[in-house]
């Protein structure tokens, strides 16, 4: 990754397993499942009634007093991002304006933010009175909407739903004036955002970057969308624990959820100068695309994934022999899981049988733009503690999957970990981390 080394110095995770990195890692290690019946709305009319929901929180606790008025402009996606960013920065030891305005020690122009975000779904309840006021003869009337309904929509409504608002609110809270980007590549957004943030530091445009993503998929519109595209399981509505089954013969679809996974990336010299704790080094990333006429799924041979892995390995200057852990995208949709398994196998060759593969979505659910950040954080924790927790719900491997899915928790000295992501539409991305060595 050019000549500048980029390291990870802070972690922040909000997930269905809890509000902190500690909660998430503890849950993953004990095989806890964050998936349960949807409580955000009554899911009776949905073919999938399950989701991974973040436990209750009070957003005010994560926002400095001077900015509390702005929380009314925050959709859930924005809140999750603000919370994860807060933990990541606190964890890194950096003092931004938002952490302590008196002691702030970060140059605002030398810190960047690069987040993955979903297209934030419109809050149906918020919209309902305006829609109700626009009904004529029992039907929605667009002319009535333009005249009467529209006036009932709160003036700043749009600003809650622009995907770049995650990065903008965090940028205002913590005074981040460097490069800012928002990647909107659905479920692979977080992986790409982390890769791009590392590139921004490597090319010298910033010393520090907040990177990752956040998304709330637990909205009626988005859950209905995944049900209609037939990506959500409809078979396990009474069994949240067993619902999401990546690479398992009994897999029947994914389960969606909400979360935020954000890390602090830093130029290694900057981190060393301030004596920061260094979790891991970003040593490579690779990107490609799946090309499939049925673009709600990736191509059956996973070629786009193979290419991304090969590019990332080349950039890290290592071979499959060096990889000690793979966290795959592993969504629990049979044909996508098999395609991903084939794509990984084609890149890893004979090493496929050896390399432990640990899917996390059976516990974390599919959190869209958040999953890249959450998976990278899980990989860092595994590296730090020298263990890979058991995969959940993969009791009998699906035919065609030759990956070495971790059955029991294993102790492992992890030097290189690889996180793989892809999305409907086809974008693929791979990030490789290395245990930090001076």
């Amino acid at each position, binding site marked *: 990754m050019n000549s500048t080394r980029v390291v990870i110095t802070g972690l922040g995770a909000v997930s269905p397993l809890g509000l902190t990195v500690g909660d998430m890692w503890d849950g993953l290690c004990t095989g806890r499942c964050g998936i349960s019946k949807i409580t955000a709305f009554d899911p009776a009319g949905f073919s999938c009634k399950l989701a991974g929901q973040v436990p209750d929180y009070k957003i005010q606790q994560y926002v400095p007093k001077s900015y509390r008025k702005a929380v009314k402009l925050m959709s859930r996606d924005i809140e999750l991002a603000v919370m994860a960013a807060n933990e990541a920065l606190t964890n890194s030891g950096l003092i931004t304006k938002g952490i302590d305005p008196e002691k702030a020690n970060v140059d605002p122009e030398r810190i960047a933010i690069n987040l993955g975000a979903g297209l934030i779904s419109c809050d149906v309840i918020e919209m309902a009175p305006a829609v109700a006021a626009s009904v004529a003869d029992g*039907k929605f009337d667009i002319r009535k909407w333009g005249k009467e309904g529209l006036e009932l929509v709160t003036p700043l409504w749009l600003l809650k739903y622009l995907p770049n608002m995650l990065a903008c609110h965090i940028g205002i809270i913590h005074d981040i004036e460097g490069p800012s980007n928002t990647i909107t590549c659905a479920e692979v957004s977080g992986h790409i955002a982390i890769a791009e943030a590392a590139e921004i530091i490597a090319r010298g445009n910033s010393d520090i970057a907040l990177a990752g993503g956040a998304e709330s998929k637990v909205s009626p519109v988005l859950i209905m969308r995944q049900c209609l595209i037939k990506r959500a399981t409809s078979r396990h509505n009474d069994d949240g624990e067993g619902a999401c089954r990546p690479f398992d013969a009994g897999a029947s679809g994914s389960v969606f959820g909400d979360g935020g996974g954000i890390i602090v990336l830093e130029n290694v010299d900057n981190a060393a100068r301030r004596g920061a704790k260094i979790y891991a080094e970003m040593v490579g990333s690779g990107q490609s695309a799946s090309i499939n006429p049925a673009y709600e799924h990736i191509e059956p041979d996973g070629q786009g994934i193979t290419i991304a892995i090969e590019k990332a390995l080349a950039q890290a200057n290592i071979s499959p022999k060096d990889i000690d852990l793979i966290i795959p995208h592993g969504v629990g949709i049979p044909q996508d899981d098999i395609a991903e398994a084939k794509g990984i196998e084609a890149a890893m060759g004979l090493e496929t049988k050896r390399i432990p593969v640990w899917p996390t979505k059976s516990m974390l659910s599919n959190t869209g733009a958040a999953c890249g950040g959450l998976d990278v954080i899980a990989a860092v924790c595994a590296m730090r503690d020298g263990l890979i927790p058991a995969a959940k719900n993969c009791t009998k491997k699906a035919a065609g999957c030759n990956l070495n899915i971790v059955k029991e928790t294993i102790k492992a000295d992890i030097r290189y970990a690889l996180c793989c992501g892809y999305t409907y539409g086809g974008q693929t991305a791979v990030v490789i981390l290395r245990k930090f060595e001076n």
Partner: protein
Amino acid sequence: MAHDEKNERVVITGMGIVCPLGHDVETMWQAVLAGKSGAAKTTIFDASTFPTTFSSEVKDYDFTKFTRNSNLHKDGNRGSKFAIGAAAQACRQAGIDVETDKPADGIDRKRMGIYLGAGEGAANHEAFFGAIAAGWDKQANQMDWKKWADVAAVKMKAMHELEQEANMPAAHIAMLTGARGPSRSCLTACAASTQAVGEAMMMIRRGDADIMIAGGAHSMIHPLGITGFNRLTALSTRNDSPETASRPFSASRDGFVIGEGAAIVILESLRSAKKRKMKILAEVIGYGSSSDAFRVTDMHEDGRGAIQAIVWALADAGINSGDVDYINTHGTSTAENDSIETKAIKAVFKDKAKNIPASSVKSTLGHLIGAAGASELITCILAIRDNIVPPTMNLNDPDPQLDLDYVPNKPRKMQVDVAMKESFGFGGQNNVVIIRRFREN
């Protein structure tokens, strides 16, 4: 940095556009130079009772003219279909074979990527509003989700839902071109496609790709989009005169005119372009990205972030402010943008500011939101090619506070070697790209 021996130089070898002023580059350019407006009464949906009843729509567009596999793209959202046309044109100019398993253009597909600033596909409004109306219990002031879901499950269609995702235009370009290199989509509001071009340039510069299909695709001319912008009072409401409504830098400006479309440029390493003996349209020499970190509702009052992005882009290009011949402004025709953008230009260019022509093609094209930056960048390429600066139209009552040379009302013949594209987005997103007439050294 641009002059670092290790880095690849990045040039432009193709361009394509589908926009309110035409479905190809030359038609658009002639219309821009003639000062034509794309704005008229909105026809995509019935906006007759909205505060703003007009927009700058892409008219009479048939995406099937640009693809042999129209069935593959039939479900594409408006942005996706615009993107197919713009990408097909750009690829043709750059000699990139499309829709073939056996390309003969000598380009390694793994070294050809995509970077778009792209927005959402429109919701299926009948389903969206219909389900809410069906489920909402007015008396109880609550939603009956079962009723909502029963209607939504029938009215919402799987492919239409999929096509609302912002990464879909890039997906269609991948299918069209077979590009297997890095593929990204970003959405930083109105600055998105300038950012996409800038980041794509960086990918080639550092060697991650030889060719990037970069640009933007977006349509927000849909009921929720117009509702959102109308509620923000960001849109012009000059309903009696759509074609003069976009009047950047004039005293009577009252908001932007929303447009739609797609614009694609082919970025290529100079090495690759030479190997393929391509005609070089311009060189991309600088990029700067910053954030205001001020307010989600307003730009920083002194243009802090805008200034920073311009300064960084100049530094990245390794040129002085005096080397810029033409500034293609963000120039939205809102009170706030035009005044703060003027301040920012003055802060950077100081006493030279008034001597640099700074025009806004949003006065003709309208504001293409996610696709704005890339479509306007194409006018910069053409300004260099033809040595002519496009005008700011409808500038008949200059704002006394705004005193730069906005090239009012007619184009200007002049030597243009270096052009700067500025884009600023809601939330304080600032992106600037600088291009230069190609020369060997």
